[in-house]
């Protein structure tokens, strides 16, 4: 948390603000004006005493002072209000711009870098972290100006009246700073405890609430409640200790800000008694000189908020700092895929894939099998360039994938996962996906995906909004809509991550038919979870020990790959298990 870094973070934020920063500047300027007006009440007070001492106070003068106070307060309040509106305008515009910037950057980021971050994490950045920036732009910055400039302006004014007393009036700051240092030093000692205990509390609360079903089933209410209440007790005793250690410092800080009266009254009194200053000056210092420092009190809270906002900036920056893929040639005409000595590591230390060589012919249907964690998913992610290879090269139609325009690459390789994604729009929109397509073409694709009949039974047919109806589509139906979309898109290369879905058999048969239609004439790579489907593939590649040693048609592979042979046996065994209460019906 060095100061330098802090500056960088906030100036970065101002850069993001772009044109909106003029709103912020305007707001700061207006806040300054307001704090200038803020001395008017005190000035009026001073004039009033002066006149009273001189014995020249009149009703007319009183009225003049009254009018002046109202007028300047009006200006002040308007400036303050306008400052606040400006800063909010600038802040919310900036928030929108930053959100756009992040989505725009994400649109160019490598898919892998995007997938590494959980959706929850990015969601948090997009919603909460970016929202934090508003605090700084709309509140902290203008407030900082207000809290600092107000006392500063008053100090300057006091200085012009009596420089010695003015200097004396800021003496409390010296004590205050010392106390603050003491407080932060003590507080930082607790930092680790705070984080640890907060983590513990939330983990315990999470377990207590998420596990409630089991807790009740196992009648653990008492014991698990004890664990929960222990965590709460731990949190309590820690904060109690913190309060004991730092509370007095904060309290002393607050009161010490007003200690100026203890110097100003005797010093001013001495000067007055000896005829060096007027009664007006004495009173001015005894009253205002002891009050005006109180305005900086919120600064202490501000420093917390500032680090809060800064944290938001850094979280956003983390995403914006991810390098993006840009430029390149058009997608090649030929669609065979070759991997030459491909190695890959996520962290630069442990290899996930080592020296993989594989050639997938154009129009071929290749299945990829292997135990979980062996690198199947990584392999297909490299082909679709979610990541760049650590060494070696992947070519499509003879062109290094790194040289192909990233958008084109994504556009020409359809990746179909088991979790079907639908937008809230209509079914038509979900299949057409932004392309200008006639309903007839969309229906043709839907027919091939075995879903047209179903859609036509809906009251609004293709205009049915998924958002309103989504809950009533079964998983299998959603999947087939996604397949229709892919059929319409007609990309030459297909990657299927096929897991046995929870669809019922009748739906699954339809899905299988839809997928068969989709695959026709394409270069297809299937990550096979149901080994049964490998029989229909041209060849099968086995990923084991972080590489590929065997690629062969089904029958041949059973002979040459020990892993595949065992898996096939396991598969047949698992499929032939029949549960029975006698528990021993297993056909080997």
């Amino acid at each position, binding site marked *: 948390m060095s100061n330098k870094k802090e500056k960088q973070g906030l100036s970065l934020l101002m850069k993001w603000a772009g044109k909106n920063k003029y709103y912020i500047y305007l707001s700061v300027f207006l806040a300054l004006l307001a704090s200038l007006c803020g001395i008017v009440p005190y000035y009026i007070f001073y004039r009033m005493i002066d006149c009273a001492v001189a014995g020249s106070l009149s009703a007319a003068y009183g009225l003049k002072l009254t009018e002046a106070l109202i007028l300047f307060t009006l200006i002040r309040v308007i400036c303050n209000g306008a400052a606040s509106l400006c800063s909010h305008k600038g802040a919310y515009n900036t928030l929108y711009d930053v959100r756009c910037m992040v989505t725009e950057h994400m649109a160019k980021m490598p898919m892998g870098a995007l997938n590494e971050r959980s959706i929850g994490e990015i969601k948090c950045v997009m919603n909460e972290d970016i929202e934090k920036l508003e605090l700084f732009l709309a509140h902290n910055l203008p407030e900082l100006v207000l809290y600092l400039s107000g006392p500063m302006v008053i100090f300057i004014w006091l200085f012009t009246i009596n420089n010695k007393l003015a200097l004396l009036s800021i003496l409390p700051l010296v004590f205050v700073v010392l106390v603050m240092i003491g407080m932060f030093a003590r507080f930082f000692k607790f930092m680790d405890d705070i984080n640890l205990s907060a983590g513990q509390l939330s983990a315990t609360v999470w377990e207590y609430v998420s596990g409630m079903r089991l807790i009740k089933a196992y009648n653990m209410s008492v014991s698990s409640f004890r664990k929960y209440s222990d965590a709460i007790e731990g949190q309590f005793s820690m*904060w109690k200790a913190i309060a004991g250690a730092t509370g007095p410092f904060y309290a002393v800080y607050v009161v010490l800000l007003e200690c100026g009266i203890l110097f100003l009254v005797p010093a001013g*009194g001495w000067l007055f008694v000896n005829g060096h200053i007027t009664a007006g000056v004495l009173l001015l210092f005894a009253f205002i000189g*002891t009050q005006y420092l109180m305005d900086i009190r919120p600064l202490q809270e501000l420093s917390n908020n500032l680090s809060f906002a800064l944290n938001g900036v850094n979280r956003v920056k983390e995403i914006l700092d991810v390098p993006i893929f840009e430029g390149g040639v058009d997608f090649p005409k030929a669609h065979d895929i070759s991997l030459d000595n491909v190695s890959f590591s996520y962290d630069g230390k442990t290899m996930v894939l080592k020296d993989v060589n594989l050639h997938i012919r154009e129009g071929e249907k290749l299945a990829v099998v292997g135990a979980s964690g062996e690198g199947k998913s990584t392999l297909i992610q490299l082909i679709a360039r979610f990541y760049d290879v650590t060494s070696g090269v992947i070519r499509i139609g003879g062109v290094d994938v790194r040289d192909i325009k990233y958008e084109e690459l994504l556009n020409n390789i359809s990746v179909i996962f088991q979790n079907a994604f639908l937008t809230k729009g209509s079914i038509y929109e979900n299949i057409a996906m*932004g392309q200008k397509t006639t309903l007839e073409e969309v229906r043709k694709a839907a027919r091939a995906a075995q879903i047209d009949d179903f859609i036509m039974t809906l009251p609004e047919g293709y205009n049915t909004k998924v958002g309103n109806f989504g809950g009533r589509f079964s998983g299998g139906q959603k999947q087939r809509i996604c397949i229709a979309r892919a059929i319409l898109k007609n990309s030459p290369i297909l990657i299927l991550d096929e897991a046995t879905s929870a669809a019922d058999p009748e739906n699954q048969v339809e899905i299988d038919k839809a997928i068969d239609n989709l695959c026709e004439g394409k270069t297809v790579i299937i990550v096979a979870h149901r080994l049964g489907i490998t029989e229909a593939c041209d060849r099968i590649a086995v990923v084991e020990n972080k590489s590929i040693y065997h690629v062969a048609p089904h029958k041949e592979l059973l002979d040459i790959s020990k892993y595949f042979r065992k898996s096939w046996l396991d598969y047949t065994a698992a499929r032939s298990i029949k549960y029975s209460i006698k528990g021993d019906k297993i056909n080997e």
Partner: protein
Amino acid sequence: MNNKAFSIGKGLKLAIFGTVLEGLLAGSNFFILFQVLELIFGKSITFEDIKRTTLMLGIIFVLRLILYTVSYTKSQIGGALVSKNLRVTLGDKLRRIPLGAFTKQRIGYYINASTSEVADYEQILTHKLADITKYVVLLVAVSLYSAFMNIAVGLIMLVSLLLLIPTIQLSIRQVKKYGKAKNLAREENVSAITEYLTGSQTLRSYGLAGEKNKSLRSSMKHYSNISYQYEGAVVPIGFVYMFLAYVAAAAIIFISVNGVVTGDLSIPEMITINMLSLYSCKVEAALYVSLVAYRNLLISKGKIAGILMENEEVKAKEVINPKHFNITFENVSFAYEKDQAVLKNISFEIPENKITAIVGESGSGKSTIFNLISKYYEPASGRIYIGGEGIGSSSTEMVLSNISMVDQDVFLFNDTVKNNLRFAAPKASDEEIENALKQANCDFVYGLENGLNTLIGENGNKLSGGERQRISVARAILRNSPIVLLDEATSSLDIENELLVKKAVLNLLKTKRTVVMIAHTLPIIQLADQILVVKDGGIAESGTHDELLAKNGAYAAMWQASSKLK
């Protein structure tokens, strides 16, 4: 009960009292300054007087220092105590909320309430409650003191303080009115962002990412605009109040100057009155800020109170102690949401010590049957019996004590392997635990760094999916309860793990219990003693595999489809 949960302890009350006293002492500085003023304008002041005054001020200052230090520290501790009590109360309440309420979304809400909402509430409470009380008492005292010098001035001060009430009311109203629109826009924005992120892969491959995604952009823009409108509706209120407060101060200047001119007020009185009135403006500004913060506290408080007021489980009236463990559904209907019946007047019998399999499309109500047997939910109508005893009026715990569940969402405690099993059967010996692990194909546990005593992390996250499922089977074997509910999801496992889990389940079945299973594939249930085909909220067919095939109905069609699958 609610008030009790939110009540502040003695320490905090004392702290507030101390803070108020400190505020009054701070105000008494003006009283001393007034004495000085009288001396100054009496032309008889000496440095001795100044010294005496300084000593007085010094004493007050030291007293304030002590009072505030003690009070502030006490209020911090008192606040922490409030958090603690609230969390304990919430935890206790959560135990009594029906399990059906613990949906994924709701669980997040409960967790958030017990952690952040409580923290927010406490923060504002400890920081602001004492301040608010102090400011109000101080302002009233100042008004009264001024009223002694001039009744009109005192009244004006009081009025300006009272104006805060409608101001805050107006601000609450505006927050409610515009806050609703803002919350709506935020929710829409969050869901648009969620949709965008979830589908980012698809959207990108269709060129619908980033700026090309119009719907995301417009929802973000809308949220930005609404947020600004909200501030525009709320922000000016405070400034209008500030203006009125200073108009009051201006009026006091006018009155007090006139008072001096007419001789009703002495000059020291006039000066003191104006000092007090300007000081009041400052305090009122601070009070307004504190009240706004307090207003926000009510939001957190409302959320917590909402949970504390949720319906509780019906208190168990009857003790059930069934001798047999057949399960009977008698005309049972159920809906999660009104008008969307999931089960319609459904009746069936699940025989004791046999396997009953439930099949049907997703969403047909299979898991609802499980939820009703486990008493997570109460049926809307109809009755459910275990061994002939109705479960309606007994407690969830009592019903669950007869049931073991092996389902898709395995939940494991952040504890050792051994303890996770022992939770299921507290009296089990080490041998029994090891035997259960063996039966459930959990040999892998011996390879963990500390064997059975290895901590498995939050929800067992140090284990793989297949391992977690097998541990949950081991738990069920060890628990040995008369009813087993089985919803095995092996679809996410690789083939090796799938086989291991299935073999583990076979060993569980050997214990010859009443087994109800949701079947995702048909071949596995060919030997089930009974198959229930659920369709459109009712039982379409029931019987054994062979009987159902002979019927040539819904099940036969499914079977035919199933045999086509590779």
